[in-house]
């Protein structure tokens, strides 16, 4: 991939998407560079097979390209991107007729990208991820988008087709449940 110049580096997602719609071939490459790892993490939360997660990230950007004529420059790019990604993941899981499967026991530690966390950090992270995965799906979805993917409640709500207030309520209940479970485990 060609190295982006400084102007592209500082360009907003929306500006890059506008450039892609206008036909700039480097703009999508820059967006891909920005969001590949983030989307891969989001996919890997529910998909144990690495290639499937990577394929879905590719498909997400393919859909972004196909839907470029419908992109509204007045709206934020990130929730639009995540909406496409989450819908593709949902469709994929539904087509396979199975529930999300993710190894949470660190059994693939030899395949992790550096840097490796300390054993204590890794254990804490594993416990929190397990607690998140045990949440009801609606609460889990909001928490993953808001906490792990750093979307605002408004953006998470857009992705999930709910109101921002509903997203906040779900997140609040989910965080309460998480805290209770983790406290119970600690005690």
């Amino acid at each position, binding site marked *: 991939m060609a190295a982006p110049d400084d102007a592209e580096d500082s360009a907003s997602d929306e500006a890059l998407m506008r450039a892609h719609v206008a036909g700039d071939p480097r703009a999508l490459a820059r967006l891909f560079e920005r969001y590949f790892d983030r989307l891969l993490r989001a996919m890997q939360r529910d998909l144990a097979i*690495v290639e*499937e997660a990577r*394929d879905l990230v*590719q498909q997400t950007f393919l859909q972004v390209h196909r839907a470029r004529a419908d992109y509204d420059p007045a709206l934020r790019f990130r929730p639009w991107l995540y909406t496409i990604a989450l819908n593709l993941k949902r469709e994929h899981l539904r087509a396979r007729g199975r529930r999300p499967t993710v190894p949470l026991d660190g059994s693939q530690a030899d395949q992790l990208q550096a840097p490796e966390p300390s054993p204590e950090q890794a254990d804490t992270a594993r416990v929190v991820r397990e607690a998140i995965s045990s949440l009801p799906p609606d609460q889990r979805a909001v928490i993953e988008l808001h906490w792990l993917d750093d979307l605002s409640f408004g953006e998470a709500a857009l992705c999930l087709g709910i109101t921002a207030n509903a997203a906040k309520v779900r997140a609040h209940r989910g965080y*309460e449940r998480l*805290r209770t479970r983790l406290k119970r485990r600690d005690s």
Partner: protein
Amino acid sequence: MPQRCLQKPSEPLRHTSHMEGRAAHEASWRQLQQELERERRWVGRLRGLRTRTRVSLVAGLALAPAVLMALRHGAWLELAHGPELAHGAVAGLIVALTAALLSSLGEPRRGTRRAWLAGLSAFVPLAGALALAELGETHEPASAAACFGLGIALAAPSVLLALIISRTPVRGWTEVALLAGLSGISASLMLDVHCASRQLVHLVLGHALIGICAGVGWAAASQAAATGSAAPSGKSNTNTISKMS
């Protein structure tokens, strides 16, 4: 906020042993570029049209036979003076067809599956058949089998076009069933205008069944295609899914 009390878990990326980190990123980008290159073809160009344009194309193709037939025979004038039930059935058809097209071709977003449309797609042709049975005979009747075959043939092009220009990779069977069912209803409406028979048995078997059979048939084919093309691990899904969309 509760999350302040929680430590954000690290989410290390898992990679295959032979293709890690940056290499995986580069490989994915190259594959995506190949897909983007394929999008330059005419099918890709059609998929890249605005949603409203694509919906108009499919809706136009679905409704054109009925409109042309009506203009030619002036039979809709007859319908306009028909019973209220007939007007309701046609209005229901238009609403259901528009909603199904928007649902099937629209942007990917949560909640695109509309189960109530499935009910409409089954109800509308039956209601239409009952309503048109009240209009009486004005032209030469045809056999129910001939009407059914013609209707199925008329319903196919718009469904094919819709599947070709749909952007979402894997279509749910409900969306396919709705789209095909409603295209079938449109075809049966054309037959209602063209065909003289107002016998209830003929209208149900030769006309109303078109929408239902088209919906069920396309849904079954779509389901079979989705099951048969489930991509194995290690192979890109993108090519497989592009063929289906």
